């Protein structure tokens, strides 16, 4: 019980905790965050490693927030399934958490078609998440089309970086 309490305190101190209620923090402790938090507590990191919320822990898949796509495709590739499903489980287990999904495309072709394509990318991630247990109200999917490229250069590697859906947690 002492340990659970200390984990709860860690969550309170972490970036997101200000908006979380006590039951949410307990859910975190029991599910996805359990391993990391237990490990942190076990290795004596409870004092200085307190900022490692599962969403920020670089060793946790939840810290990965981008799904990349092939050209003119909105299919979520197999290599990103685990990432999307991990976020879906986090949302399922944290009913107060919510995300904004932003679909993006590279600069080539029609701006309007790219706006629709980016929406399809975000919608497909949303569909995967809701099928895996996240609730519809927790997820908003929008498109930025080709309007907000992360990389401004005009070559294949830049285009690949810009064909992307980003997962943004509210309150982060």
């Amino acid at each position: 019980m002492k340990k659970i309490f200390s984990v709860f305190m860690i969550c309170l101190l972490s970036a997101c905790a200000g908006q979380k209620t006590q039951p949410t923090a307990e859910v975190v402790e029991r599910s996805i965050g359990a391993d990391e938090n237990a490990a942190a507590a076990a290795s004596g990191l409870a004092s200085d490693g307190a900022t490692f919320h599962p969403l920020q822990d670089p060793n946790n898949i939840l810290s990965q927030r981008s799904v990349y796509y092939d050209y003119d495709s909105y299919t979520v590739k197999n290599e990103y399934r685990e990432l999307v499903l991990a976020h879906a489980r986090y949302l399922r287990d944290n009913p107060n958490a919510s995300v904004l999904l932003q679909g993006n495309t590279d600069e080539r072709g029609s701006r309007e078609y790219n706006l629709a394509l980016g929406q399809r990318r975000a919608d497909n991630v949303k569909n995967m998440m809701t099928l895996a247990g996240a609730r519809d109200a927790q997820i908003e999917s929008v498109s930025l089309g080709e309007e907000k490229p992360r990389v401004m250069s005009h070559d294949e590697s830049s285009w690949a970086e810009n064909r992307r859906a980003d997962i943004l947690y509210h309150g982060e």
Partner: protein
Amino acid sequence: MLIFLRHPSCWLWVMLLLLCKPLHAALDIEIFGGGATQIPIAITPFAAEERLPQSITSIVAADLQRSGLFKLVDSTGLAPHSPAGVVYADWANRGANALVVGKTTLFPDGQIEIRFYLMDVAKRVQLTSLATLVPAAQLRAAAHRIADIVFEALTGNVGVFSTRIAYVMKQGEKYALQVADADGFNAQTVVEYSEPIISPAWSPDGSEIAYVSFENKKPIVYVQTVATGARRAVANFKGSNSAPVWSPDGRKLAVVLTTQGNSQIFLINADGSGLQRLTRSAGIDTEPSFSPDGRSIIFTSDRGGSPQIYRMAITETASGFAERLTFEGSYNVSPDFSKDGKSFTFIHRHNNQFNVAVQDIETRQMQILTKSQLDESPSFAPNDMMILYATEIGGRGILSAVSRDGQTRQQLTTQTGNIREPVWGPLPRLK
């Protein structure tokens, strides 16, 4: 530029360009092929024109040259200013079929009288003339009107030199919706945001422009009155609102909404009331363009697995049926119906290039008009003879136009900024 300098009439043209003081834009014209069908025309400087703040004949010459239908004949050494002073044999010897002469008078109150005459060199007759009184600020407009008169008299087609274009200019982190004369001059900012603007669309009477703004963190369709700047949100539903285009009667807009799921095409009244769904597919339906009779739309859809152009009749209830029009290649987007309803222009991808193409509705014959890498947003001129589009050079968006037959291309190059989403406006109501 080298191609341009090899053109026979180039040196007169260079001189005219030097006379013409660039205000906001510099013009770079590239012409290739098709010389045989061009009408040779001589344009003599108008009397007292050098005292005006703006040369008139240089604008007339630039307009006619840009159409690709005219070849400028050197007028050095000959300077008649009225029909009485014209020695037809001189012009016939130089190969001119037509001749423009005229004079200007600058009055103390700043008003300028322009008299111009168009002469048929072969028949040795005056074809038409114009006398007009304008303030200095209207000199460019008067020159465009003269070019329109010459164009109509010699080709039989309506001139579009007095029309305006709209486009989005990105400068730093600012996005400006601008309108300019059809030659790229006189650019004025209609509205400016720090978030993207896309898809401007002129109302049929040219008084309003619909566009998509991301200023509220998602795409919303607005309509703005050009003269007053008054603005209203026409489509602001849950999800994305985009791709506005006006019905030919100006009463409705077709827009693309995600409020019921995928991107689908809806009709909405110009005041934002009366939403009605048009398309019903499991894929993306976007980029509607009305047929001139307003009874059908062409649009981009990926319902067949790749983005292609489809046509459907407008009916009371939403329909999943549409006729596929494009079959060459795996990416055909951004259709714009011609004003005569016989063809459409669009962007076609092949060999990793995105080019302006046209397709005949009946024969389905397709023609690629450009050779550049990344073309976008083609739209027909009101006389269907030119197509305005955006292309990219060195990572920067440039305004370009190509003749309907692909024979003449031109760049309207601005000094700074990054231009995208051009659209050609309608003919002025009063001509």
